[in-house]
């Protein structure tokens, strides 16, 4: 049992009186879940405190004493690999008067000293000293009381680090469940089954965070929201990019899959053949592409295809509720800022030559991979974000309450399959994944989770 300072989340009372059966229905949800600041405040506890939330990637803190700043909901945290190698999520908040103690995005440090009054902490969260301790009564600073708050449960899955404040949450492994399979496949196509996070394409929008998550496996919006991108990708070449959406995407081989716990997966790979080079062939046009391709084909013959695929975007959307999305080669993180402001950060990933098979070509592959990754944030995501902002604007109309997500509802027979484990599969254009996620959302928002922090650096084990 993990020793935690149990506390009432306080969220139970925040949204007392909200009728969740009314706000979230089978075919529709109330605009209020996107616009109400009280609901947003409750989400920061009941979702961004109570389920496993993605906070960082291990490649951002490869060595002991490395740290990276992050957030758990609105809580400022420092993800550290402490001096003994343990990964921690420390609250970036001085125990004394509340100032943040780390103001650098990332770096290496054995500890953190508050700039305000000089209280110092080790990178495992333990208070290591305060200036002029004689000014405190005997025993006033003893025990754990003034150690940094930290998250007792921090765990990672194949490099992805998650944290939860909920002692009653299932293990991370159980929480991820079926979505581990597409994550495994996404990683296993990379050399050594690994990627390294580099920097990010960083965007934001004036809209609720759930608008981004609702969109994450939505195959219905593509030909409309991304009309300019599809036209651009195919202005000089055919069958590039997301062209497989153009003809009746309802009947295309791609599918959407729902795994439970709000995790879903839009798999567009069935639209292409399974062979080396197939991904590269549909890749739209990027800087340096022809140079690299001709060079690789000349020097590597048939093997060029597998090297070129490493620079190509994988046509998948793997979505881990509530804030992690793997798409193409990006690790996209959705960060709520307020009920109507959201950061969406598209971390780029690079190939690592784990087994030394790539050698001198690594730089050319990664340079091209950077260029393929810049494409969608530049020419696709900006249009989605405008549409999210315009949803938020439209939802200002209070009397017109409902947001519909009923595409495919009532047409399940022959269209939707459910396997023995409850995994649901349907056309990539159905909104079944949104409806299922909203059921989870409703359950979480109706709960009163026992969340808490610890100040004992020895507590918890992930």
């Amino acid at each position, binding site marked *: 049992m993990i020793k935690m300072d149990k506390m009432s989340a306080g969220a139970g009372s925040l949204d007392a009186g909200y009728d969740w059966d009314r706000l979230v229905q089978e075919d529709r949800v109330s605009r209020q879940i996107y616009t109400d600041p009280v609901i947003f405040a409750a989400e920061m506890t009941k979702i961004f405190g109570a389920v496993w939330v993605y906070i960082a990637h291990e490649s951002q803190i490869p060595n002991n004493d490395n740290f990276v700043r992050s957030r758990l909901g609105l809580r400022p945290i420092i993800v550290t690999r402490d001096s003994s190698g343990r990964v921690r999520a420390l609250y970036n908040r001085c125990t004394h008067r509340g100032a943040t103690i780390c103001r650098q*995005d990332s770096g290496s440090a054995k500890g953190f000293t508050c700039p305000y009054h000089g209280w110092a902490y080790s990178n495992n969260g333990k208070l290591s000293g305060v200036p002029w301790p004689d000014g405190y009564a005997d025993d006033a600073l003893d025990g754990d009381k003034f150690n940094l708050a930290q998250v007792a449960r921090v765990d990672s899955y194949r490099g992805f680090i998650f944290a939860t404040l909920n002692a009653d949450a299932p293990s991370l492994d159980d929480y991820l469940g079926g979505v581990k399979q597409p994550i495994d496949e996404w990683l296993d196509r990379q050399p050594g089954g690994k990627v390294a996070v*580099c*920097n*990010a*394409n*960083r*965007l*934001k*929008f*004036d809209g609720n965070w759930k608008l981004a998550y609702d969109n994450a496996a939505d195959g219905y919006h593509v030909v409309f*929201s991304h*009309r*300019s*991108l599809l*036209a*651009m990708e195919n*202005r*000089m070449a055919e069958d590039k990019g997301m062209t497989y959406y153009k003809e009746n995407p309802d009947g295309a081989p791609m599918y959407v899959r729902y795994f439970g716990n709000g995790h879903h997966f839009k798999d567009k790979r069935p639209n292409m053949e399974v062979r080396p080079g197939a991904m590269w062939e549909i890749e739209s*046009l*990027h*800087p*340096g*592409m*022809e*140079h*690299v391709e*001709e*060079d690789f084909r000349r020097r590597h013959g048939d093997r060029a295809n597998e090297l070129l695929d490493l620079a190509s975007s994988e046509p998948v959307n793997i979505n881990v509720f509530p804030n992690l999305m793997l798409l193409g080669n990006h690790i996209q993180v959705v960060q709520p800022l307020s009920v109507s402001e959201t*950061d*969406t*950060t*598209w971390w*780029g990933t*690079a190939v690592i030559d784990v087994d030394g098979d790539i050698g001198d070509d690594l*730089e*050319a592959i*990664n*340079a091209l991979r*950077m*260029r393929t*990754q*810049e494409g969608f944030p*530049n*020419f696709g995501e*900006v*249009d989605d*974000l*405008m*549409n999210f*902002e315009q949803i938020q604007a439209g939802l200002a109309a209070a009397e017109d309450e409902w947001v519909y997500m009923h595409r495919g509802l009532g047409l399940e027979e022959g269209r939707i399959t459910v396997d023995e484990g409850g995994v649901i599969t349907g056309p990539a254009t159905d909104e079944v994944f949104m409806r299922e996620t909203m059921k989870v959302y409703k359950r979480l928002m109706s709960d009163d989770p026992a969340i808490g922090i610890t100040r004992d650096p020895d507590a918890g084990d992930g």
Partner: protein
Amino acid sequence: MNHDPSKTSHYVDAGFYEKLIADFGGWQSDAAEQSDVGLRDSCRRFLEKEARFLDQGRNAEWLGLFAPECLYWVPASLDGGDPRREVAVSFDDRRRMEDRVFRLDTDHAWSQQPVSRTARLVSNVTVYATDAADDVFMVRSNFLTTEFQAGDKRIYTGWYGHQLRRLGNSNGESWQILVKQVNLIDCDQNLRNPSIVL
């Protein structure tokens, strides 16, 4: 073999990246600053023309200011970073610049519907000579671009690094952009709808 850089991207190779990083790292040496007032004014007029084309939505004419093999680069790192290992806000070769303009002209680029109104100020122009060639200069300037979009006024600001080639013609000097680097002061922060050409 000659390749049309509007159609295929052959020139963005290892040498291109190396030269780019070398040219845009530490090029602002005080010793290389040019004191010639006429040269500075010529560069400044050219930068102001570029800003005017963008403010007026004359995107095809804006493209015409660039050399056939060119780059429009908005780094996501304060020092420009290493584009071989980092994603940029934008890293457009000639073809991708034309893609960008094509997309904006489709009338279906929702991030630019309605089209942003912009007013660009370009100032603090400093011209530097280069070792590489007598007709190639590095020009540093500060910019302040105010955008009106979706009921809001927004600001992009920072400094431009232009690598310019001087073209002689009968009317005196004219210029061609080899590389335009846009250094936003908030390049490593989350940006709201960065869909205009900066």
